C-alpha cells in the first residue's frame, strides 16, 4: 500500500500577497482505501534569526539563537476522521493570507542569519498503528506594489542618479599601491525596484596599468538585535563581472545587475532585525591590486 500526499498550489510561481487567498488542492493518491482521523491544513510563516558566531561564542550562537518571530499561523480542519476511497482524491482548499495581530507579512527572504519563510502544511492523522502523513509546501510572499513597510518615503522618492569618480586621491588609503587611474560613472539610482535591474554606467578615463576585471558585488547587511545589543553582518550575495580584461578607455561600460530572487527582498528595518543591501564596485588591476567603492542600496517593491 503506498500513499502519496501532495499539495498543489494554483499559481505556478507560488507568489502570494497579503489578504490574497492561497488556493490549491490537496492531492492524495492511494492504492487502497485510506482510513484517517482527520486532515488539517496549516499555514505558517516566521522569521528565523541566528546570531553570528563572530559576535558571540560558538556555543552561544548555537543555543542563544533568538526566538523565531511567527508572522502567521493558521490551522484549519479540512476533514474530520473518515475514509478516502482508493485512487486519487483531490481536495480543493482556499486559505486567506492574513498576518497575526500586530505582525506584518514580510517578504520571503533567505539570508545567512535571517530567514523569512512561509509554508503550507497538510497533516493526515491516522490511527496509532500507522504513521501520520505530512506534506509541506513552501510558498512565497511579496508585498503589494508600493505598499512596503520599508524605508521612509523621502528616501524612496530620492531617485536621483548618483555620480561617482574614483582616482587614487579619492581612496581612503590615500592611493598607496594603486596605479594612476580615473574612473567616472553613475548609478541611475540607489533606490531600486527589486524587480528591475540595477543600472548605470562607467567610463575608464585613463589608467596607467591594465585592468583585469571590473566587478559588481551585491552585499547583504543583516542586523539582529538581541539582549547583548545587536550584531551586524555583511556577506556577499553575488558577484557579477561587468568588465573583463584590459577594457578600452573612454568607452561606456554599462552597469547592470539583476537582483536574485529569494536572496534579496525590499530593504527591511524592524525593531528586532534589519535587512539592508549594498553594492561594491570593485576594480581589480593586473597586479591584483583592488579598489572598492561602496554604495548603500535601498530596495523597494514597486
Amino acid at each position, binding site marked *: 500500500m503506498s500513499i502519496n500526499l501532495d499539495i498543489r498550489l494554483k499559481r505556478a510561481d507560488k507568489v502570494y500577497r497579503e489578504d490574497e487567498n492561497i488556493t490549491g488542492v490537496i492531492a492524495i493518491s492511494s492504492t487502497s482505501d485510506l482510513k484517517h482521523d482527520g486532515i488539517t491544513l496549516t499555514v505558517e510563516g516566521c522569521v528565523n534569526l541566528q546570531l553570528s558566531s563572530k559576535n558571540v561564542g560558538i556555543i552561544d550562537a548555537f543555543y542563544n539563537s533568538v526566538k523565531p518571530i511567527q508572522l502567521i499561523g493558521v490551522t484549519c480542519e479540512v476533514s474530520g476522521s473518515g475514509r478516502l476511497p482508493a485512487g486519487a482524491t483531490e481536495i480543493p482548499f482556499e486559505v486567506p493570507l492574513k498576518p497575526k495581530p500586530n505582525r506584518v507579512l514580510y517578504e520571503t527572504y533567505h539570508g545567512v542569519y535571517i530567514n523569512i519563510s512561509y509554508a503550507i502544511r497538510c497533516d493526515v492523522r491516522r490511527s496509532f498503528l500507522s504513521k501520520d502523513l505530512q506534506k509541506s509546501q513552501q510558498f512565497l510572499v511579496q508585498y503589494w506594489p508600493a505598499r512596503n513597510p520599508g524605508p521612509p518615503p523621502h528616501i524612496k522618492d530620492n531617485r536621483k542618479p548618483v555620480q561617482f569618480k574614483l582616482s587614487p586621491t579619492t581612496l581612503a588609503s590615500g592611493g598607496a599601491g594603486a596605479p594612476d587611474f580615473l574612473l567616472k560613472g553613475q548609478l541611475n539610482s540607489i533606490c531600486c525596484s527589486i524587480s528591475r535591474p540595477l543600472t548605470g554606467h562607467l567610463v575608464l578615463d585613463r589608467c596607467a596599468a591594465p585592468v583585469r576585471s571590473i566587478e559588481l558585488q551585491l552585499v547583504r547587511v543583516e542586523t539582529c538585535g538581541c539582549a547583548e545589543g545587536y550584531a551586524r553582518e555583511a556577506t556577499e550575495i553575488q558577484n557579477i*563581472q*561587468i568588465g*573583463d580584461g584590459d577594457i578600452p578607455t573612454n568607452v561606456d561600460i554599462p552597469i*547592470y*545587475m*539583476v537582483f536574485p530572487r529569494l536572496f534579496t527582498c525590499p530593504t527591511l528595518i524592524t525593531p528586532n532585525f534589519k535587512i539592508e543591501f549594498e553594492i561594491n564596485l570593485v576594480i581589480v588591476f593586473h597586479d591584483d591590486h583592488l579598489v572598492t567603492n561602496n554604495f548603500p542600496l535601498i530596495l523597494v517593491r514597486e
Partner: protein
Amino acid sequence: MSSNYNIEWKTCTDEHFSAKTKGLSGVKTTDHPLKTAIVTERVPRRILGSQPSTGRTTPVSTPSVILEPLSMALEGVDPLTAFAIEEMDPLTKLAAQESRDKVDSSQDKKLSDYKCEVDAWAMKKASILSKYTTSEKISIVTSFLSDGDKVVVKAQSTAVDKMQHRLEQLDYIEEGSQTRLDLSQTEYVNRIEQLNRELVSAWNSEQRVKALKIAIQCAKLLSDTSVLTFYPSKFVLITDILDVFGQLVYNRLSTKTDSHKLGSKTKLPEDFTPEMVSDSAKETCLNWFYKIASIRELVPRLYVEMALMKSYYFLSLSECQEALRRLTHMINGIGNPLVAVYARCYLCRVGCSLSNRIKNKEYLLQNFHRFLQNYQHLFSRSVKGELAQQKVSQSVYMSLFTPALDYMLQTVACDNSDALLNELLERCKVHGNSSLILNTVMSAFKPHLISARTLQFLEMIEHCLDQGIPLHSLLRTLGLCVSVAPPPLEHRRQILSTAWKHITGLKQVEEYIACAEPWVLYVVKYFSHRELNTILGDIIDHIAPDRSYEQYYNQLKNVVENIVLNIQDFEALLVMDNFLPLIDLFQQESIRVEVCKKVLSGSNSNLIFVNDAVVVNALMFLCTVLHDSVNALTPEDEYRQIGDILCHVIKTIDYGRDFEQQLTFYVEARASFSNIDIVFVQLVQCVNALSVKTRQIVKGLHTRKTGDFVRACAAYCFITVPSIKSAKHRLRLYLLSGQVALFNHCLGQADACFKAALTTISEIQNDKTQFPESELIPYVKQFLSILLVVPDNPDCSVLNLTRALLNVLQGYSWESNISLISIYLSVIDMLSVMAQEWYPYHIDKVESNDSLYGSDKKFIAEINKICSVVTNELMSKLQSLGPCTKQSTFAIELFVKLAVRNDLTNQMLVLALNLWNLAKRDNTLDTKYLVCETLDENNVSILCILPDQNKKLRKKTNVRMQ
C-alpha cells in the same frame, strides 16, 4: 454483328470538333489531375549538433494535393529519393538544401531573408574552420571530459537520497575533476564534440543544471585567446554547442506550453504571443534567465544569454529587442578586442536568426559602430603584449577579425545602401583609412556600390597607414568587386591604370598573382583585347622568372578560365601575342591538358566559323596538346571528352568556298590527330560532306577540276577509313563513302569502298562483340539496297559485287541460321527487283544495271541462277532448322516470296505447296488468316490473308495450273 447495324461512318473533322466543344466551359488549371502529389515543403534534415540550429524552424511537410493513397503512404519523399538525399555527398546535400530553400523562399519572402542569412553563416562557418588552424597546443580547462564517467549512479530510494546524490554529483563536477589539458587541434575539436554530446545527453537525462554548466564552461573557453590564430575556429565550434543548448531550452519551454490552452495536440505556432504561454512555462523560463543573470564572469554570461535569446519570447514580445540593445552595450565591457568582436558577431547572428520577429535592425549597425568606437583599442598595449608573446604579426592579427566583421557588416549591408556606405567611409578616414575597415566594407557591401566608388577606394587604399590587412588583399577584394559589377564608364581606364600600377609593384609573386586574378577578369569584361594583351604580358613577365609559376598553377588556371568564359571576341584572344605564351607556362602535363581543354571548350561555344590562318594555327596547337596527352593509360571518359572537343574544333574550322584549302586542312588534321578514332570518323564524315557539297555546287555536272577534287575526296576517305580501329565505324563509313563516291560518279572508288566493306565483314567474324549480328543484319540489308543501283564493273563478271557479298555471307560464321535465312530472303527480294525492267530508284546521272543490260536474257538467266542457288540454300537451312515456330514463319515468308516474285513453274508450285504444308505443320501459325482454297480443278488460287497488325493485307495470286 456489326453488319446488323447500319453504320454511317463519318470522319470527325475540325469543324465538327469545335462545334462539339463549344458548349463546354473551360476552367484554367494549374495542375494536372493525374500528376502525383507534390510536396511543397519538406522537412529539412537536422543533424543534432552539426547544424547551426539557430532556431531554424521545422516546416511541417504539407503536400498540397494528395490524390493517391499510395503517394500519401510515401509521405512526400519516396524512399529512393530519400536514400539519394541521404547518400549525397555533403556538398550536393548543401546545394540540394539550398535549392529546396529557394523553392520555399518563393513562397515566403520573409522566411527567405532569414534563410539566406543562415546559409550565409553556414558557408562562412566552413571557410572559417578551414582557414584558421593552428599547429600549437591548445589548452582546455574543463570538468566534463573525464574519460569514463566516474560518477556512479546509485540506487536512489528516497527523494532525500536523490537530492543528496544530485548535490554530490554537482559538487564533483564543480571541484572534483577540473583539469587542464594541452591538446592538438584535432584533439581539441574532438573534445568539443564530446562536450556537445555530453551536453545533449545530460539534457536528455533531465540533468538540466549540468547541461547549463557545460554550456557555461564552453562559453568560458571563448574568453581565452591563448592561441590567437585558432580563435575564429574555436568560436565556430563553441557557438554551435551554444546554439544547441539554446534550442534545447527553447524546445522544452515550448513543449511545456503546448498542452496549455491549445489542446494537447497542437503545437505552439512560430509567432506565438506570451499570452499563449502557460504560467509554468513562464516560470521556468524566468528561472532560466535569473540563473544566467547570476553567472559570475562576463563573457560566459553574455554568451549564454545570447544563446537563450529566443526564449525571451515566452516572457514578452519586447524583451528580446531590449536585450539585443542591452547586450550590444554590455559587450563594451569585454577588454579583449578579438573576444569582443566575436561576441558581437554572435549577437548579430542570434538577432538575424530571429529576423522573422525582430524588424528593427538597428542593433546590427549599433554593433558595428561600437566596434569602430573601440577601434583604437586594437593597437593598445595589452594587444601588443599578447602579439609579442604569441609571436603573431599585426597583419595576421587583423585578419582574424575579418570573418566576424564581414558577417556583421553583411547583415547590416543587406538592406542598407549608399548613405550608410558614405558614412562608414567617413569614419574609416577618421581612423586613418584603416585597412581592416576598408576590407570589410569592400567585401560586405553590394559590389555595385563599391564599384561606383572605386576611385575613392583606391585613393583610400593608397593612404592606408596601418600595418593591418596588406595592400594586396585590399586590391584583391576591390578587384573582386569591380569584376562583378561594372564601375562607371568614364572611370574604368583610370581605375585600371591606378590599380595595376600598384599590382605591378608587388614583389612577391604570390601576392601579385592573387591580385591579378580578379583584375584580369575586370580587364576581360570591360576592355578591349589590346589591354588584355598588355596585362597578360605583365603577368608573364612577373611569374616567368625562376619558374615561379609552378606554384601558382591554380591561380593561373583561374585566370585563363575567367578569360575564356568572359571574352567577347575569341578569335582576337587566340591571335593575341601573349595568350599562347601564357598557356605555355603550364608545364605540368595534366594541368596543361586541363587548361587546353578549358580554352577549347570555351572556343567551341564562342566560335562559329574560323578561317583565319593564325587562329587555326592556335587552335591546332591547343588541340595537339590535348591529342598528345592521350596514351594507353588515358581513362575512357577522358579519351571520349578529348575526342569530342577535337571533333568540335574540326567542325568549326571552315574555309567557306575554298574547298581545296579545306581538304588540305583535313589532311593536316589527319596527320596530327592520329590517336583518336572518333576524330578520324569525324574527318571522313567532313570530307564526304565536302564532296557532296561540291556536287551540289556543280549541280551534278563535274568539270575536270571538280571531278579531280571529288576523286581526291573519295581517295582520302578510302585511305583514312582503314586507320579507324572500330570495325563498326569502318563498316558504316565504307558504305557511306561508297555511296558518296557513287553519287559523284566515281564508280571505281565506289567499287573499291564496297569491296573493302565486304572484306571488313569477313574480318569481323573473329570479334563479334564489335559488331553483333543484330546490327549486321540491317547493315547487310542496307548494303543490298545500295547494290541494286551500283552498275556492274565491266572488267568483272556480271553481278560481281552481289556474288562477292553472298560468298562473304556464306563464309561468315553465323551464330544461328536464322540471321542468314532472313538475309537470304532479302537477297531474293533484291534480285527479283534487279530483274525488273526499270528499277524503283536511281542515282542521278548514274546508269544502273537496268539501263546497262536492258533486261538482257543472259542477265536475267544469271539472276535466276543466283536465285535458285539462294533458294536451295534457303531450303536446306530451313530443313536443318527442324520443326518449330521459326521454321513455319520463315516457310510462310518464303512461300509468299515464291508466290509474289516467281513465275511459278510446275516444279516451283510443288515447292510452294511443300512450303505451305511445312508452314501448317506448326500449330501456332494462325491459319484463320491463311486460306487456301480450290476454285476449280485447273486453277489453284492461293489466297493469303496475312495478319498485319490492324488491317488485313490481302494478297491474291492466281496461279495457273498446267
